[in-house]
Every structure is written in C-alpha cells, then in structure tokens.
C-alpha cells in the first residue's frame, strides 16, 4: 500500500515541477519575443541568442557535473555518482548539439555563412567530440563497471582540458581574423533589455536542465535496481 502512495507522491512532485517549468518557459518566450528589442542589423533572427547562449552555459555546467561525478565515483566507487555523471553527460551532449545546430542557423542569415569558426562555437565542437567519446567509451567497454571507470577517467581529463581548448581556439581565432565581425554577439555589449531577457532564458533553461537531470538520474537508479533484482532472482533460482 505504501508503494502506491509513494509513486503518486513522486508523480505529483514531478507534475508540479513540470508545470512550474512550463510556466517559466512561457515567461521566457514572452521576454524573448515581446519584451526584448529587435536587433538593428540582423532582425528577429538574433532572438536565437535566447536559446543559443543559455544552452552553451548549461552544457558547460553539465560537463562540470560530469567532472565532479567522475571524481566522486572514482573516489567512493558508489554507483550513484556514475548515475549522476552519465546522466549529466547525456544532457550535456544534447545541449551541446543544440548549440551547434542553432549556431549555424543564426549565422547564415546574419553573416551569410553557416559556420564562422568563432571561438565559442569551435570550442563547443571540440567539447562535443570529447563527450561523444565519453558515451562511446561506455558503449564499447567490455563490461559495465569498466565502462564506468574508463568514462570517469575521460570525464576528468576532458573537463580539465576545456579551458585549455578554449584559450587555444581563442588565440588561434584572433590570429586568423576571417570575419571582420566576430561571431554571435558578446554578452558584454548588450542592450539592458536584451540582457534581462537573456537572464530569464538562463533561469528557464537551468530549471529545465535540473529537472531533466533529476529525472534521468533517478531513471538510471531504478534501472540499476531492476538489474540487481533480476540478478538476485537468478541467483536464488539456481540455489
């Protein structure tokens, strides 16, 4: 009897969270489309910034969580840390992919070309490659625990590498000024109304991220529980 009410309670919490996030997203849409002023030169397409920039920051946050989760897993060897790290990696890759998709969609009408090799976009591409490697490593490992161990190693090395990659790409880019105008606009020279809308976007997507991370992590935990139950059942049926 307790199981059923637990499940309903969990479901209720989840639905409330979902409702809050939906409301914040609608608010975000208001700020992005109605409140924020239109950019003079590029027009409405510049509003892509309200997805593109928050997701870049959240991808970075996700990979930071992978870093912490990986360290904790290697230290404590508790699988809950691997649940966290691998869930964050999944979400990080989704966010990174969206950054890489919205970037060109923004760039083409604004600067005329799909890809601008601007530092943020290029570092994001390298980041994407590193963390896709993370998932591949887990998939190709000989067994589950090896996958967790190896991907934790990559999760640590990868994140430490990120600032170095960013600097290298940034210097490289300033050296080879292909475009007179750099890529997507710097946050520093934004109209204050735009900056406000951007902050709302960041809050909205952060809530979404936190929700998805929690869902994914608990899903992994349940998967693990089911697996262990099955193994138990097998052992008992043999004994």
């Amino acid at each position, binding site marked *: 009897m307790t199981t059923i009410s637990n499940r309903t309670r969990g479901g209720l919490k989840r639905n409330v969270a979902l409702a809050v996030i939906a409301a914040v997203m609608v608010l975000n849409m208001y700020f992005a489309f109605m409140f924020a002023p239109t950019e003079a030169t590029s027009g409405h397409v510049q509003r892509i910034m309200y997805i593109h920039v928050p997701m870049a920051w959240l991808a970075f946050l996700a990979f930071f969580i992978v870093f912490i989760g990986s360290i904790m897993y*290697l230290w404590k060897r508790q699988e809950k840390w691997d649940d966290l790290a691998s869930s964050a990696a999944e979400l990080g890759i989704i966010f990174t992919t969206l950054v890489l998709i919205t970037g060109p969609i923004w760039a083409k009408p604004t600067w005329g070309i799909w890809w601008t090799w601007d530092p943020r976009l290029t570092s994001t591409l*390298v980041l994407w*490659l*590193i963390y896709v*490697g993370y998932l*591949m*490593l887990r998939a*190709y*490992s*000989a067994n589950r625990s*090896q996958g967790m*161990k*190896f991907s*934790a*190693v*990559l999760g*640590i*090395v*990868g994140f*430490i*590498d990120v600032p*170095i*990659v960013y*600097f*290298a*790409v940034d*210097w*490289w880019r*300033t*050296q080879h000024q292909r475009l007179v105008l750099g890529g997507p606009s710097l946050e520093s020279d934004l109209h204050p109304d735009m900056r406000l809308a951007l902050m709302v976007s960041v809050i909205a997507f952060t809530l979404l991220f936190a929700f998805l991370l929690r869902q994914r992590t608990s899903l992994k935990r349940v998967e693990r529980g089911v697996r262990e139950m099955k193994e138990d059942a097998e052992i008992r049926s043999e004994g």
Partner: protein
Amino acid sequence: MRAVAEFVRPALLVAWKDVLLELRNREVVATALVFGVMLVVIFNFALNITPETVDVLAPGVLWVAFSFAGVLAMSRAFVAEKEEGTLDALLLCPVSRDSIYFGKMLAMFVFMVVIEAALLPIFAVFFDFSAFSATLIGAIVLATLGFAAVGTLFAAVAANVRSREMMLPILFFPLVSPVIIGAVETSGAAIGGGGSLTSPLRWLQLIAVFDAVFIVVCPWLFSVVVEE
C-alpha cells in the same frame, strides 16, 4: 635518494624494455615513418601544394603527419601488454603504478621523437624550409611530450575496449587539439617567418601548460585504469 631509485629505476627499466623490443622488431618506427611519408604525398595531391601556398600549408601538413604517425605508434603501446598478459605480470611486481606510467610514456616519447626526427628532414626537402630552428625543435619536443602524456593514458584505456584502433584516435585527437593548434602556429612562425599576432613564445607556453597539467593528472588516472 632511495625514493628516486625506487621510482626512477623501474620507470627506466620499463622504458628500456619497450625500446629494446622495438629495436629487435622494428615494427613501430618503420611503419609510422612510411605512413608519414605517404601522408605528405597524399596531402600534396589533395591540397595541390604550390610554392606560393607552401608556407601556409606546410606546418599543418607537418603536424597532421606527426600526430597521425604518432597515434599509429601509440596504438601499439599496450596491445602487446594486453595480449601477452605482461601488464598483469608487471602489476604484480612491487612497483609503483606511476613508474610504469612514466616508463611507458618515456618509451612512447622516444619513439615519436625518432619518427619526427626522421620525417623532419624529408619534409624540409619536400617543402623547402630549414629544419634546424630552435623554435621548431622546441615545439616538437613540447608537443610530443603532451602527446605522450595523454596518449599513454588513453592507449591503456583503448587497449581494453572494442574497436580499439578507432577509439584511440577518437579519444586522443579532441583532447590534444590545443597542442596541435599551438604546434602548427609555432611551426608556421618558424618556417614561414610569421606575421603572427600571437608570438610563438606564447604558443609554446600554452603547450607547456598543457604538458605540466597532464603530466600530473594522467599518472594518477593511469593507476585507476590498470587496477582491476
């Protein structure tokens, strides 16, 4: 002093074992060398390198050749260990995991430097530049250190997973991209004579920072990787 002997001597022994093996078989260096030369030829056709474009393209071709040949050499590093089970035997010895790591890293560094030293004069002829600038040599040494530091760790990882020939490059290249960028920029300044906004020294510093960070981080993670 005893600590040094306990740490340094096993590392040197491990490195010497790999070098000795290579001296007998001559598999790694020879194949990587041929591969490097072949890459230059292919690039020449692919990019249509002319005397006008050589200064711009040569550094890039050089470092693609160095890094791909290096990965080829790297992928051999732990395969023999895994297949013959010699790594397990090595782990049974009362030797610190760090020693094993640094031994393997040293051997890998030596192999790659030998390959690069052999390829460099060949490239100097193909692309008509002077091979003996200090900046260029410095870039090669620092970059190869970085390759060896990260490569040893991930060669050990890749040796244990499926599709290892594919996994090593996939894991390795994105991680060492700063090194490649820095090496190409520095070589460009050394070969072509510059016009670079960022001085070669700054790039060398970047590579040095990379090296310093990963020479510290990778050995620790190596012991995690090889322990059961």
